């Protein structure tokens, strides 16, 4: 677009390009022979046995995605500032998802690959590359990118059922992987008992003594307890960051260069299964130091309910263990030194650089677990974001020499 007559003579804007693309892609990246039904040989002690291996699905088709992408690239001030921005919307149909099925169907793993679901993903990306300082031996180059991505499940199967898996679900109208949990409503100041919300939003308090009983804290009367049936889809809370990106800066003076790389992700939640297990009052494992924040006396505003041996209900799966995962991570700090040309002439080397690098040295987050990027279930459509005794990403310190001949 910068070639157009009205922009050609601009001294600020050197290059401006508008682009758009539209495409239809297919994807069947779901393992080997997913459509065929096969049996495999196993053993029943000394006898050979044939058991069903993959149930197959003769109706399996390609996934289809239609993506529209509109973007612009601009270059200003002779390359001192480059900006790229993209907006995209992608409609995916016939997503091949593992549909969890009933045990009474009796297929391996209790799931079946099916084309189900429509998903719409929309996003905006912005990349800014700038060289704020470029005078004499000083240079400072900065790269910043940010993405905002949001998806929405348009449909699941024909009946509009919600597909649950782990603590997440796919429900029409919600984002993919939205958390599906019991709502924890805090600890009663006077008695230290856990309060949950039932499906209708009413409070229910649990007393673990004498086999356990539920009351309505407002009236003190006995009430129907809260159970798995009171889980709700927590709109807007997903394991996928909606806002994420990186920020890299390199400052150099002559042959010395210092790079600082940051990575950030916001607006996502992690289910801290590790903490839930460590705080569980039905096992005799070591406990997290968080137990010190449990209720001890009347009037105390505690984070956790009173400790009572054998009490499973006050510590069960719920939003009590769902935490914000927002973080900023220092991905890289590198300090390097390039030997000057006049030194290298003698040894006939083209380039020698000595460097020291720290990878993932710092993490800034309010998340109580080891690492907010934890993911026990791997790359699944639903059911991501569970931190179950996941280790942190390793910090690496290294130093080295790069030589070009």
């Amino acid at each position, binding site marked *: 677009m910068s*070639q157009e007559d009205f922009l050609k003579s601009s001294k600020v804007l050197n290059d401006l390009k508008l682009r758009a693309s539209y495409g*239809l892609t*297919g994807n069947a990246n779901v393992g*080997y*022979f997913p*459509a*065929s*039904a*096969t*049996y*495999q*040989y*196993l*053993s*029943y*002690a*000394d*006898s*050979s*046995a*044939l*058991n*069903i*291996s*993959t*149930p*197959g*699905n003769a109706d399996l*088709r*390609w996934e289809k995605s239609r993506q529209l992408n509109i973007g612009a690239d601009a270059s200003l001030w002779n390359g001192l500032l480059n900006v790229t921005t993209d907006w995209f919307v992608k409609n995916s149909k016939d997503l091949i998802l593992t*549909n*969890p*099925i*009933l*045990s*009474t*169907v*009796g*297929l*391996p793993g*209790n799931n*079946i690959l*099916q084309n189900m679901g429509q998903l719409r993903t929309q996003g905006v990306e912005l990349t800014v590359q700038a060289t704020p300082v470029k005078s004499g031996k000083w240079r400072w180059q900065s790269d910043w990118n940010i993405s905002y991505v949001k998806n929405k499940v348009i449909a699941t199967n024909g009946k509009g*059922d919600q597909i*649950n898996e782990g603590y997440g679900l796919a429900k029409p109208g919600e984002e993919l992987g939205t958390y599906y949990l019991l709502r924890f409503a805090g600890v009663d100041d006077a008695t230290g008992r856990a309060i949950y919300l039932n499906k209708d939003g009413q409070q229910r308090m649990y007393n673990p003594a*004498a*086999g*356990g009983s539920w009351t309505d804290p407002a009236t003190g009367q006995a009430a129907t307890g809260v*159970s*798995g*049936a009171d889980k709700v889809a927590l709109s807007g809370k997903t394991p996928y960051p909606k806002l994420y990106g990186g920020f890299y800066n390199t400052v150099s003076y002559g042959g010395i260069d210092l790079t600082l790389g940051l990575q950030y992700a916001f607006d996502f939640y992690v289910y801290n299964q590790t903490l839930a297990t460590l705080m569980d009052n*039905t*096992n*005799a494992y070591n406990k997290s130091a968080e137990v010190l924040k449990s209720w001890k006396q009347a009037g105390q505003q505690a984070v956790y309910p009173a400790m009572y041996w*054998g009490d*499973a*209900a006050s510590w*069960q*799966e719920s939003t009590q263990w769902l935490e914000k995962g927002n973080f900023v991570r220092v991905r890289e700090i590198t300090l390097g030194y390039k030997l000057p040309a006049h030194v290298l002439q003698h040894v006939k080397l083209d380039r020698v650089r000595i460097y020291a690098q720290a990878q993932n040295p710092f993490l800034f987050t309010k998340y109580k677990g080891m690492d907010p990027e934890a993911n026990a279930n791997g790359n699944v459509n639903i059911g991501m974001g569970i931190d179950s005794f996941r280790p942190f990403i390793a910090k690496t310190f290294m130093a080295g020499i790069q030589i070009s001949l």
Partner: protein
Amino acid sequence: MRKICYWLPVLCVLMASCHDMVTDIDPENRINTNQVFSTAANMNTAVVGCYNSLQAGDMLQARALVLADVMGEDLVNRTNNFGDIARYNALSSNTMAARTWQAGYKAIADANRVIDGISKNVDKTTPEQAQRWMAECKFVRAIAHFYLVNLYAQSYGFTADASHPGIPVMTQAFYSNDPAANKPRSSVKQVYDQIITDLKDALDTLPLSNNTPYQSKTRATKAAAAAMLSRVYLYKDDVENAKNYAWAVINKQYGDFGLNTEPSQCYGAGNYLTKESIFSIPSKAGDFEVGYTLTANYTTNVDLGVSPDFLNVLTNPWLAADDKRRTQLIALHPVQQVMVSLKYRDVADWAPVIRYAEVLLNYAEAAAKAPGTAPQEVLIRLNEVRNRSRVSALPYTNMLLADKTQLLNAILAERRIELAFEGHRIFDLNRNKLRITGKRDFDYNTFLPAQDYGADKRILPIPLVEMERSGGVLEKNPGY
């Protein structure tokens, strides 16, 4: 200068006309479903596949049997491996309950699919062979339903006509996510009716023995079906039928079974194919899931210790101090210093599902409960089991066990000791409407609250994940 491409739109049109292609190559290391029932040999191997599913660590290799004893009062859950289940405090999200449910229904589904496959391919084998294999599948289906209905539903006598919720009864083969698989829970009566129908069909068609002793103990035979029927009818409180089927086995109608001389000869490597064994789930190195075997729970990890109250002659006077089931099958663990069962010590130990001793006890109990049975008949069988193990104690006589109540108490006490840690206790407690008292928590010192008959947590929860996936069709167990 702006260039306008003319050939670009043409290229786009060309690319849009590409269509899908599908490969038609079969994988090398697996068999396509339509080949499974194409030869007699493959059909046989598919039938073995049904037993293999029953052999899952969560089903009859270990868990279904272990949970039955963990929920009784004779074990101490010392490593707390069984957590809430042992404390009658589980939640519907309990993983062990979910896994056993899934494993049980997998075995049932496999049996249904093999029956379906064979029935559609009878021409590839002889009609007798086809009937026999389908009978074996019905046996697997019945056993799986039986253990599931007793773990996940209250006993038969909980309501007058057993109309309380049981488990879904599955007799149809499914190959895809068929909505017909989303069945509600049938009543306990309906479940038992299906189990009995299947076992009776199996009894008619199964052989007396299979080719080798190994095959006869690990695959179904007439004796296995009859023995199982005696147990099913006993649980159903149909004492006449229970007595008759047990008697058929005792009377050598289905094979010559008998008790081993010593109790220790029923367990362990080298003792799997004795005359006392009627049906067992075999095992082999590499063929089990680590941690999901009887040996793992009772010996390797010492998850389960024998309760001191079971061993104390004051609280359990029926287990004499010199009884061989104590001296040969229970000992102090050298490292952990707790009393443990010695029944399962080999890594690849088989699980004894049906033993001749149980058939004798089934007979004794059914006969004792049946009106008009001569007490002598009962005593002969009861003594037969007890004589094998008693040393200095005297055999039971009419004088010693004067009335029906005392006789029944003696039989139930004998059953408790003889079948201890073999996957019977909670079922016997539930069907006889007995109160569970004196159960110790994992620290050996605290006593758990007593559980009356019909208490909510004397049975496992219908798994939460199954209820969710059924969209509310499966109703939960009360209290969960």
